[in-house]
């Protein structure tokens, strides 16, 4: 299995061979011989020369090549690209394009207030909308200065995580 991995803002090349519980891995030229076992779905116990790493792997619900991996108490976001299977261009897609920035709901909730109007000129950090989730009101702030060219948020509306609330150009 040959993969490209994006982790901590770095691109790594990974070559992995599995033979039963034995795993031979080469990450950017570093070689590892590991004993790997799965103790429960998503729980991988990796032993490297006696050192035990308990790895909890959560796959992203939407993108099967994106993972959150906990190694002990450390958390990593890992994106894989399997050149054989995955379409190209899936890596590192950005919400920002050209001179526009999108204000995206980071969690599901309810829009309680919209603080600007379409066409308003805003500074970076200005509050645009207030989204309530888990009893706390969270002010969603402009990621950059510019003009609010699109305003999708409506007071009282329920929003999903990832929904675009406003576009600033």
């Amino acid at each position: 299995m040959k993969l490209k991995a994006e982790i901590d803002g770095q691109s790594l090349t990974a070559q992995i061979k599995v033979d039963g519980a034995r795993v031979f891995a080469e990450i950017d030229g570093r070689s590892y011989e590991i004993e790997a076992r799965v103790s429960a779905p998503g729980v991988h116990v990796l032993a490297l020369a006696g050192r035990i790493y308990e790895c909890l792997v959560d796959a992203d619900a939407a993108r099967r090549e994106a993972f959150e991996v906990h190694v002990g108490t450390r958390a990593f976001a890992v994106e894989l690209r399997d050149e054989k299977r995955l379409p190209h261009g899936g890596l590192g897609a950005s919400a920002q394009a050209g001179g526009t920035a999108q204000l995206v709901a980071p969690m599901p909730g309810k829009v309680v207030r919209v603080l600007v109007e379409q066409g308003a000129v805003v500074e970076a950090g200005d509050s645009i909308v207030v989204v309530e989730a888990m009893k706390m009101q969270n002010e969603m702030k402009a990621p950059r200065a510019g003009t609010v060219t699109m305003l999708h948020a409506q007071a009282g509306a329920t929003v999903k995580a990832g929904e675009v609330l406003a576009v600033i150009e």
Partner: protein
Amino acid sequence: MFKKILIANRGEIAVRIIRACRDMNISPVAVFSEVDASALHVRLADEAYAVGAAPSVESYLRIDRLLEAARLSGAEAIHPGYGFLAENAAFARAVMEAGLVFIGPTPEAMELMGSKTSARRVAADAGVAVVPGTTEPLQSYEEAREVAAGMSYPVMLKASAGGGGKGMRFVAGEDELLAAFETAQSEAAAAFGNSEVYLEKAVERPRHIEIQIFADQHGNCVHLGERECSIQRRHQKVIEECPSPMNDAALRERMGAAAVSVARAVDYTGAGTIEFLFSDATREFYFLEMNTRLQVEHPVTELVTGIDLVREQLMVASGHALSFKQEDVRWSGHAIECRVYAEDPENNFLPSPGQITRLRVPAGPGVRDDGGVDENTEVSIYYDPMISKLAAWGRTRREAIDRLRRALDEYSVGGIRTTLPFFREIVRDEEFIEGRLDTNFIPRFFERRAATAAATDATVSLTEEETQARDIAVIAAALDYALRQRASTAELSSRSQTEQSHWRLAGRAALQRRS
């Protein structure tokens, strides 16, 4: 003693109260909203009744439905927990009118202490110092502007019916006042159904210290010492400890006596907490408010005094005298609690609802976890994001921190983000270990953290151990990915096999018909 009580709450506090019921051979009755039908607190109860849809105004805040559940179950008393209706005098009154016992103070005491403005008057009349500020709710933004200018910035906007940091805003200058005023009002209206707010002078670098009090119906009123709750984020307590790291017996006596005199002034009964702001510079303390309920952070007091506060609440509510006197209260060792929230500390503490895919709760010497979830629990967007409270006890504060650090590292929650990584850093922070606490601890902690990050040259390569952990993460992700690929391929082929065998069966049937 009661034979059956209804718990008008959910989550960890419902579970905590069920545990006290079990200790006392009382049958616990749960209530649940649509999304909580199979929640942990429901499964641990003897009986459970549906009270409505997911939003709490349609379920856990529906007094009529809670009383109906109590009637159906034959419960003799209702424990409100904290939050929801715990400090709602109308609820307490409705419970009493239904011929049941409300496990808490009288509605009159709740009303007097429930409004922060009238509570300040009670405290002042009892001879306890209060933070300078308005005693009446503000009528308008203009009034707020005048009052704030009069007492000089910074000021604090607070909800009259407040609690839990909701409807509370720190205002550094007049330019921030309008936005803060509106947000505080609407947050207060949403959280408490009452948009009244008032102003207080903000005390600089204060410690937040509260006194646990307990009173029965026979005239006994005692205090169980202090909890220090200075570590707050957005005015929400995140770490609490007992005793305060100052651990000053004379101060405890002074504050305890002040708290008892406030409680006596309203003929208080049951468990209550008097919150004070404490100035390190002057060693003075000011009454802030009284919480007329069991507090979230009650376990640290329990760990240090050995007194089960919920058990005592049930005893007192059923008419018994307190099981201890002031001179019986002993403080032994030190306890620290962390509130574990479904929030992402790496992403400005945004709520992180979702399903808990894996859960390992720490245990071992000196560790106590009060949780309200288990594996597969869906952390809903409708309620408070607290999933558990992790507390550690040690003979000294240092030993408690050692155990807390161990327990935090052992704790593992999959599927959602939690504040555990944040706590793991805090218990390793020098200022925290030294006990130099005040309510600005967290902002300063983040400044220290940012300074450390800036001082660390990004081009310096990772240590061997860090590189290895990162590589291991990539390998684990790849192994998991490969397993999933294989599983989905296997599923596809098994599906086609099933289709094939159906096809074969159908073919055979057709053949048989023909013959």
